[in-house]
Each structure stands twice: as structure tokens, then as C-alpha cells.
């Protein structure tokens, strides 16, 4: 069985991966797209949180994302998937 403790070192030596800058851009793209696809559902989740400063802050952060998500119809992806498995979509 292969020794798994050196996977990272072996891949590092083989030059696998990409620069920090590219990683940061990929991560920001991920957050952007994930926000767009899930904004509406996230807003719904946050609305269910107990009242307080944390909820207010999260709502303030998510509202523009949810709005954008709805306007661009990006939220339809998740809603469609949820309908497909007979789960009540958060809309």
C-alpha cells in the first residue's frame, strides 16, 4: 500500500498546482458563482436564524447577493435540482 504521508511533497516536487494569485482568483470566482447559485437559498436559511446582531450582519451581506442571484436567474439551477429530487425549493 502506498505511503500517503508524502503525497503533498511528491506533488510539490512534480510542480502540481498553480500560483497564489491564480488560486486567489479561482477562489473569488468560486465565492461569486456559489453566491449567485445559492444566494436565494442562503437568504432563506439566514432568515431562519435567531434574531440578533449575527443574523442582521449575515442578512446585510447576503441581500445584494440574493438580489443578484434572483435577477440573473442563477438561483434557478439549485431550485431546478431541488425540484428534480422532490425537495421543496427555497424560493
Amino acid at each position, binding site marked *: 500500500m502506498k505511503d*500517503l504521508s508524502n*503525497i503533498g511533497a511528491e506533488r510539490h516536487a512534480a510542480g502540481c498546482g498553480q500560483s497564489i494569485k491564480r488560486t486567489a482568483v479561482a477562489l473569488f470566482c468560486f465565492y461569486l458563482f456559489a453566491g449567485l447559485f445559492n444566494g436565494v437559498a442562503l437568504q432563506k436559511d439566514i432568515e431562519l436564524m435567531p434574531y440578533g446582531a449575527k443574523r442582521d450582519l449575515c442578512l446585510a451581506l447576503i441581500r445584494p447577493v440574493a438580489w443578484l442571484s434572483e435577477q440573473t436567474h442563477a438561483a434557478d439551477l439549485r431550485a431546478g435540482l431541488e425540484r428534480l429530487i422532490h425537495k421543496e425549493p427555497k424560493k
Partner: protein
Amino acid sequence: MLFPTLGFAIFFLLVFCGHWLLLPRLGLWKFFILGISWFFYAYWDWRFLGLLVLYTVVNHRLALASFRSGTPPQKRWVVLAIIFNLGLLGFFKYYGFFTMSMYALCAKLGLPCSLPLLDIVLPIGISFFTFQAMSYTIDVHRRVIEPAHNLIDFAIYKAFFPQLVAGPIIRAHHYLPQFYRITSVNHVDIGRAAVLILGGLFKKIVIANFLAERLADPVFANPAAFHGPDVLLGVYGYALQIYCDFSAYSDIAIGVALLLGFDFPENFNAPYFATSLQDFWRRWHISLSTWLRDYLYIPLGGSRFSAARTYANLFITFLLGGLWHGASWAFVAWGALHGGYLALERIVIAIGKHFNLPKSPIPGVVTRFFQRVLIIHFVCLTWFFFRAQGFDDAALLIQNIFSGWGACQLFTPVIALALVVGFCTQFMDGVRMTPVWNAYNRLPVVWQGLAAAVVLTIILALGPEGVAPFIYFQF
């Protein structure tokens, strides 16, 4: 702060930015990483942050004292460190168990017992960071590693947030060299990190939560109501639930650390493909099994003495390994079963060698298949003790397997699919996903973000409402 939550997503974005922006200013970066790791821990329960700091300061001082005590090093410092670490772990985790067991024993013997009963809250992650601290002081004593350069460096190692509350138990010899080279890190294996994190989220949110909700929880909550195939489904469900749950945490921790430039060793490697119990323990919770081997089994004598001593050492190691998981006799029984079976495996091998038994005529692939089936079922048998609410429930469930082989209440095609997919998630362990890691690394950055976001959306859509805490948080 659970990994699969919006709170952690926001926290991690801030950490990622702060980490890479502050890294050129190493002094500032250290305070940042330590601060956010302590914040991560305090978010669970701020009262125990002091305990973590106490562990850090005492272990650092004792390791330094041991290192400076000359060659060969004086044993008293490492002994003090072990007493300190096990003392605190014993108090927080085992005091209640010990007093209740003493009361039960005294009641049976008709003796008075006046131990105070305390309602002690278990600090999250204490078992993990105690073992981590012990490995550090013992390794410094053994001269395997040099101590951290200063208290801040050690505090960061001790508190580094991805592995703090539920492992994997990262050893200093693995972490510290990376820590001291962190400023030279200029690229990230994003493909591996993304697959680990998304795979972990899939295992936790979709599979583990589903199997818990539909199979394991109903069966173990009401053992009298289920018989025959339902009990089997319940325990298969739990076997895959605990694997998907715990390996998910480890994978996400490893992936998060990778994005910050740290490489943690893998903690799982397809455990339900093991062909023997020894093989199983080389694949399951690898950081714990190697810890037990290096700091308990080998110091006890390992296999250096007589065969009987080796079996006893194995048994003791797993008995204590069981107790590490939780303060109850059920965990002791779980450990004893594993230790006993491991000893039995060795005895069978020794008998085979002694009598020079001929090689089996059955093809290897068939033998390995049946060995795997046997090990899965033995491990499932031990999960009854691990999961059930006490011995009586475990015994009742095992007894119920042999009755009521009529209609199956729990079976549905979706459950069958979840079990198969849960079993197949083991293919994501180890290096089996290397082609996917490399393919992801080759994608343009926008596509990397888009692909990960689509996969996350699918996971969130498939998962149930809310996320249950990870099983290993209780240990």
C-alpha cells in the same frame, strides 16, 4: 463553527486573504494565524480557550526543559508532561466515568463511596490536542525533533485551526518544517484541495446526513422496533455514516490547510477495502493508529518480545484506543474487540507459519473478496457497541439480526443508492483521484471557480436541511 456552514465560508475567505497578504510580514502573520485559530476555537466555547493556552504554555516549557536537560535527556520533564496532559484529559473526559464506575462497584461490594459528583463539560477537541501535545513533548525528549523556536510558533502549531477540534493529529515533525518554510511557498495544489473539500462536503452533507437520518438514527434510537434486515441496514448505514462523516472532516481540514500552503498527511485510505483488521487500521484514522503505534504499542514492547507479550500489547493498545474515543464501557468493549481480533489474526498467521500450511488453491481475488466481506462485518459488529446507547441496546440489536427476516421497513432504492455511493466514496481517498486533481489544475481559473460552485450547489441541493455536527466532535 462547522466547516459546511456559511459562517465558516466567510471566516475562511477572510483567513485566506489575511494569510497570503500578511505572509511577507512574518511577525504580523504569526499573530494573525494564532489570533484566528484561537478565535475559531473560542467560537465553540470561549471558556476553554484558557485551557488551550495552558496546554500550550506548559507543553512548550516542559519540552524546552527536556531539550535543554543534556544528553541523554532527563526523563522527569517528559514524565511531567505526560502526567500533565493525561491528568487534564482524565479530569475533563474520564472523571465522571470513573466516579460512576466507582459508585457502581462500591454499591455491589456494599462499601461507602464519597467521591464528589461533578458536572464537567467536555472541551471540544481535547482528545486530539492532548495527543498532539504529548507527541510533541515525547518527540522532543526522544530527539526526533527540535522544539519550536519560541512560544508563538508552538502556539500556532498547537492551535492551527483546520486540525484543532477533530484532527487529523498532526505531528510536529510534519508541521514545523513546513511552518518554518511557509514564506517560500509560492504555489498551491488547488486541484487536490478542491477535490478534498468538495468531496468532504459531499460525504458529510449528502451521504452521512442522509444515512444518519434514514438508517442509523432510527435503528439505534429504537432497537426493539427493528429486526433482521433492518438492523443490518442500520449498522451498514452507520458504518458508512461514520466513515463519510469523519473522513469528510479530515478531508476538508487537509484541503483547507492546502489552500493555506500546508500539507497534512491523509487520514483515511479506503478502510472498507481492508483485507485484514491490521490492514483496516492502516487505513482508518491513520493519524490515531500511527500515534497509538508510536507512543503506546512500541513503548509497551511492540513485537520485540514473546508472542504472548505481543498479543497483550496489541490488546492493551486497542483497549486504551477505545477508551480514547469516549468514557464508557462500550468504547472499552469496542477497543477490546479490535485488540482481541488483531491478536487472533496474529495467532492464525503464526499457526499457519508453524505448521507450514500449503498455499490456498482458491484464486487470490476470491480470497481477498471474502476477506474484505469478513472484515467489514467484523467492523460492523464492533460499531454496534460504538453507536448503541449501552451494552443492552447493542446486545438487543445483535440478537435482533437473527429474527424477523420478513418484510424490510427501511429499504428503498434511494437508500440502496446512498449505501453504494457511500461505499464508493472510498475511491476518493489516497491518490486514486490524482487524474481529477491534475485535470482541475489545468482548468482556466474562472472555470475552476465555476466548476467548484456548480458542484457545491449540487451538494447543497441534494443535502437535507441543516447540518448535524461531526460525530468525532464528541471525542
